[in-house]
């Protein structure tokens, strides 16, 4: 897999604040990298350095072979960037704005028109093309920002919180678009929404207070959860008796009671993340409990996230 973005020891200080502290990672074609972290973790600052807006205090990023510090213009040509909040000139219309972007990127005439039409079709902007951007809804403004980032069909897309502030339908549309683009490109999206990682990302990195804390696939990350391979058993009756019996199983570390809005169940936690569903179902069968539900937990990203970044 060709490395399209290589981030090397990227560091940025703001006076006394160390906003980004020696962060390194790389992204290949076909990957959608989720960049996770709580607010203030340094996600935006990292993206601003990769896209050449901010000069790194130390380190660099190489985009499709072009070093953003040594050869910023060549690197910027290969990147489509959606800054946080999707800024765009408020008194321009999407059409004049996209024409400007096309011209800056060196397209004229039919070529510019073709590219604008394609970006507009991909982001479903056609209905608002002649309306000043300042009068557009948040969802449309975000799409204008995405259309701008896609216009030159870049190899690398850097999207800073692309779905922040959108309603569920709009979020779904943006995620569908990202998935559709993924095979051809290297994509980095920052987010603090964990559902987004499950929905679109092939890999996730977690940063907090400027430091890289994890770099793994969503499945690997979820496997670090305390809840990974836990079994949730809900019985018609006799939870007390079952709890004692389950606790005696060799693979079981603990049993917790769940009482969510009257829906009672037992959560059986495994020792060292091992698979215990076999043991549990054997016990259930021999004991002859009346089971209403039984399910295996994959592990919860939000819980892993809280543990890592705490």
């Amino acid at each position, binding site marked *: 897999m060709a490395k399209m973005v290589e981030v090397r020891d990227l560091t940025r200080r703001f006076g006394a604040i160390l906003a980004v502290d020696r962060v390194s990672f790389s992204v290949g074609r076909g990957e959608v990298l989720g960049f996770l972290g709580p607010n203030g973790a340094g996600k935006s600052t990292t993206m601003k350095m990769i896209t*050449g807006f901010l000069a790194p205090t130390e380190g660099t990023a190489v985009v499709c072979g072009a070093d953003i510090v040594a050869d910023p213009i060549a690197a*910027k040509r290969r990147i489509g960037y959606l800054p946080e909040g999707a800024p*765009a000139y408020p008194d321009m219309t999407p059409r004049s704005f996209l024409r400007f972007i096309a011209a800056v990127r060196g397209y004229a005439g039919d070529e510019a028109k073709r590219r604008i039409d394609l970006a507009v079709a991909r982001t479903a902007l056609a209905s608002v093309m002649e309306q000043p951007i300042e009068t557009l809804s948040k969802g449309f403004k975000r799409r204008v920002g995405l259309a701008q980032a896609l216009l030159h069909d870049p190899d690398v897309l850097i999207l800073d919180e692309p779905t922040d502030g959108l309603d569920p339908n709009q979020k779904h549309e943006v995620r569908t678009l990202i998935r559709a683009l993924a095979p051809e490109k290297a994509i980095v999206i920052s987010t603090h929404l964990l559902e987004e990682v499950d929905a679109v990302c092939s890999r996730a990195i977690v940063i907090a207070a400027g430091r890289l804390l994890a770099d793994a696939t969503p499945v690997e990350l979820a496997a670090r959860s305390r809840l990974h391979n836990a079994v949730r058993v809900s019985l018609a009756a006799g939870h007390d008796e079952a709890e004692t019996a389950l606790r005696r199983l060799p693979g079981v570390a603990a049993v917790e009671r769940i009482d969510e809005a009257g829906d009672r169940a037992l959560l059986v936690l495994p020792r060292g993340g091992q698979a215990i569903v076999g043991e549990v179902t054997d016990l259930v069968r021999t004991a002859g409990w009346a089971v209403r539900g039984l399910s295996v937990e994959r592990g919860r990203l939000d819980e892993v996230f809280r543990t890592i970044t705490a």
Partner: protein
Amino acid sequence: MHSTWVIFRRELASYFTTPLAYVFIVIFLAMAGALTFFVGNFFDRGQADLLPFFNYHPWLYLVLIPALAMRLWAEERKSGTIELFLTLPVSIGSAVFGKFLAAWAFAAIALALTFPFWITVNVLGQPDNGVILASYIGSLLMAGAFLSIGAALSALTKNQVIAFVVTAAACFIFTVSGSPIVLGFLTPWAPTALINVVASLSFLTHFNAIMRGVIEVPDAVFFVSVIALFLYANAVIVELKKAD
């Protein structure tokens, strides 16, 4: 070169998408007229020239040019579009130059629209049109110098009002630095070398020299150097302040 042109076009067009352009041009023409005909006694002087008209340009620019320059960078920083703008594949040099040229072209349009004054004076008498042409060129150069100061200072802040006030103050200092009041204040104590430097920075002195009808190389070079210096400062300030 290409990106300078693209940026120039967008910026110039953006003046006309808001009422600013029309308000500016109307006020510029109205004030130029009022100053020339009422304060400058254009008719009573009985002379066929545009001296009363050009005399007031430095003072008009002092108020109006900061209004043209204030939005150039402050607005980009305020709305966050600077992040979009400076991650496009353009050099900081073409960004700074493109914006400046757009504002300067706008000032040139406003100045060109004063042509009725020129027609009037040619109807009434036989002015030296060479002197008038030189004065127009001098006025445009002076406007460029004011604009370059304003553009650089507008990169210092996100607040356009602050950009306006600071630019007006800076332009005032450059305008009056050769005046008898300032020089009289300096003469008792300052070394002659310093007085000469201060006096030579005066926009008024250089503009008055041009208005006499000859574009002396040093006067033109002076304004061009001011423009170059402040455009350079503009690029440095943008780099320093863009992240704030």
